[in-house]
């Protein structure tokens, strides 16, 4: 299995998904060698071999300034350790070299590559060694760039990987449709396999105390409804629409507080918007949060909004549901395909989003019905279901094997 990160050396959902998936597959009898580009100890991982492709600090696995040349980097950060100033393309080349050496010695039944970062190594295994390739798509460059443009190099790597893969796994129907539409891949080559909640998240001890969010607790006691969203403040997340809807909703129901948890390049724009609409008092920016502080936000909120313009899956919605939030999701997010007990809107439909927020805050019956429904639903997909589906994909491609 070719990946880029595993917890705790992860920056987002990719590492978490890979870990849970590999654990479930190992449980079902798969022997897994998992290649990561960096060198670090993964003490808790005993069910598979984690192989380091190169001597590299985990922090530098995405390179420094992914798309910049060395000269630019040197000029920008002259004090940085030069031997570590390596671009992501160099990391990827080293990663491919390692995979090539590995395949000279070992011949796995299947190579399972996660996202464009590892697709080149996967293609190498397919081309040079005839090993069936599964390309697992957690996000495409179109998702990351808000559907327009993106980096042409990344597109090229994605396209080659998707074309040469024996099978593609997409994390939602929306992602599958996008792969068909934008990369012109036949639909029958793509299987949809949804993600599930992180087992570490479900099992870890957590208890809420209102130390972190005393202010919000006090406002709730006064009858306020807390609406939250969590994520990077980038165009993909559609947060300016959420801010517009917040202003509209507050005009009908003043007892609303919106919590924007996260950080990103749109932060200033969002703060300015809240001031322009005159709702700064009702909008709270927490900055980047993780761990207990993040879970406290889920716990203190009543409504969780996923406003993404495009979201391949959207695990945070399930996490919020685990903490008892009711969900409002854009129809463009993958998680909305599996969850039925939620309110939905098209990401541009600011008026409907405002309507939904007001309706939930005004009606305990609506909130309660949504809450009961989601409590029954949010864990209906388990990682063992995921593993079962993926193993059937493995069995399907095994006949493509050219050497053994």
């Amino acid at each position, binding site marked *: 299995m070719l990946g880029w990160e595993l917890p705790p050396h992860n920056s987002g959902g990719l590492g978490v998904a890979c870990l849970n998936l590999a654990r479930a597959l190992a449980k079902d009898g798969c022997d897994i060698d998992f290649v990561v580009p960096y060198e670090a100890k993964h003490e808790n991982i005993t069910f598979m071999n984690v192989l380091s492709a190169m001597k590299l600090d985990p922090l530098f696995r995405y390179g420094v300034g992914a798309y910049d040349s060395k000269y630019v980097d040197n000029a920008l950060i002259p004090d940085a350790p030069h031997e570590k100033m390596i671009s992501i393309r160099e990391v990827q080349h080293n990663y491919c070299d390692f995979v090539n050496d590995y395949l000279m010695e070992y011949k796995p039944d299947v190579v399972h590559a996660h996202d464009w970062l590892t697709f080149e190594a996967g293609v190498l295994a397919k081309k040079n060694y005839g090993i069936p390739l599964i390309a697992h798509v957690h996000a495409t460059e179109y998702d990351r760039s808000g559907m327009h443009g993106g980096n042409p190099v990344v597109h090229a790597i994605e396209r080659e990987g998707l074309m040469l893969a024996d099978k593609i796994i997409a994390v939602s129907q929306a992602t599958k449709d996008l792969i068909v539409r934008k990369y012109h891949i036949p639909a029958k080559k793509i299987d949809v396999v949804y993600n599930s909640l992180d087992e570490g998240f479900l099992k870890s001890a957590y208890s809420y105390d209102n130390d972190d969010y005393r202010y919000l607790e006090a406002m709730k006691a006064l009858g306020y409804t807390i609406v939250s969203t969590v994520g990077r403040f980038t165009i993909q997340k559609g947060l300016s629409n959420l801010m517009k809807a917040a202003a*509209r909703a507050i005009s*009908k129901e003043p007892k609303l507080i919106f919590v924007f948890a996260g950080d990103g390049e749109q932060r200033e724009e969002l703060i300015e918007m809240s001031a322009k609409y005159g709702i700064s008092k009702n909008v709270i920016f927490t900055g980047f949060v993780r761990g207990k502080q993040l879970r406290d936000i889920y716990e203190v909120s009543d409504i969780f909004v996923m406003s993404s313009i495009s979201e391949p899956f959207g695990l945070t919605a399930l996490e919020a549901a685990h903490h008892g939030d009711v969900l409002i999701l854009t129809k463009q997010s993958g998680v909305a395909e599996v969850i*039925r*007990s*939620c*309110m*939905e809107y098209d990401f541009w439909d600011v*008026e*409907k989003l*405002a*309507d*939904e927020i*007001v*309706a939930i805050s*005004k*009606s305990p*019956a*609506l909130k*309660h*019905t*949504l809450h009961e*429904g989601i409590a*029954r*639903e949010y864990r209906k997909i388990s990682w063992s279901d995921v593993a079962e589906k993926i193993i059937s994909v493995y069995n399907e491609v095994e006949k493509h094997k050219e050497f053994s």
Partner: protein
Amino acid sequence: MRAICLYLHIHQPWRYRRYSIFDVTHNHNYWYEKDYYDKQNNERIFRKVAQKSYHPMLDLLERNLKRNPGFKVSLSITGIWLEQAMEWEPDLVEQLKRLVSTGQVEIVGETYYHSLAFFYDRAEFQNQVKMHSDLIAKLFGVRPKVFRNTEFAYNDELGKWADSVGYKAVLAEGWDKVLGWRSPNHVYKVAGGVNTKLLLKNYRLSDDIAFRFSDRNWKEWPLTVDKYQNWLNMDTLRGNLINLFMDFETFGENIWEDTGIFQFMEQLIYSWLNEYDNKFVTVSEAAELEQPVDEISMPETVTWADTERDLSAWLGNEMQHEAENTLYGMKDAIMSSGDADLIDDWRRLTTSDHPYYMCTKYWNDGDVHAYFSPFDSPFDAFMYFMNVVRDFEWRIQNLNQLKNHQ
């Protein structure tokens, strides 16, 4: 003698549009969606169903009524269906008048608005029944003598009420749990009643047509007239009256023309009447076909819906209860406003289809086909419903202010 009592129910609700909280106090148009192709556009839906079902099926009935004096049919037509027909397809009303004037067609009574008012407000219920009867008398020159409640929701209370106001019979579901060993193919009496009879739907033979006819996974598919008539004959061994009660839209809308449903019906009428001593009866004739064989009691409400045969599709979750309680809770204020438009708008919201759209019974299972709705989700349906209710509240207050001002 063997008789089929064919009864068809004709109804379309006034669907409220996606009425936003930002429309409240500004815009009192709940029923007319401007976008013709929108899912809530009542005109588009009505014209579509008219073309697929009302026109071809009424033509079929008219043809057969003319051809066979022995063919009879009973229809219940809601007031709000007639309103919409008069607005967009007045030909349908004219055709219905011709049908009724043959004397072979009987009109069944019900609430004008197809509401669940019986369970919330008895005075309002009686008002709506009277409004319906008046409209039927005005259009067709007859008054209903047999009653059916919305969704066949029947209990002993309703039976007693129908008996007290003098209906000949009430239609209800022939549900096994109520009937036990008894057969729906007989005439019964309402429990504790004096004169009123109970006619019970033969749900197996009705649903063979209304639900299973087009189901290719059904082991009896395709259903031929010979096979079905054989079943009818077998069933008359346990009583000579077969009550086939179903929605009118079964023909053409729920079950499409290309399944052969129209030809099936046309042939069935012909071949049933072709056999010695077979006939069709209207609901009034059915009630007098024999002396009641027994009294039937239904202390709990029984409907014709789902495997549960209860009201849980309409009043099963908290949203549905809140919506109906809030709506009926404001009735006095609405009535004392004296504003005819407001009263009519309020009554249109009592239609049972609205809480049905909020049903979450099978929602989590993803069974979208079980409950057809013009809304994306039951939560949306509830949200827009409550916005309309909020606007009613505002109109009441505003009228009071106007009155005080004067």
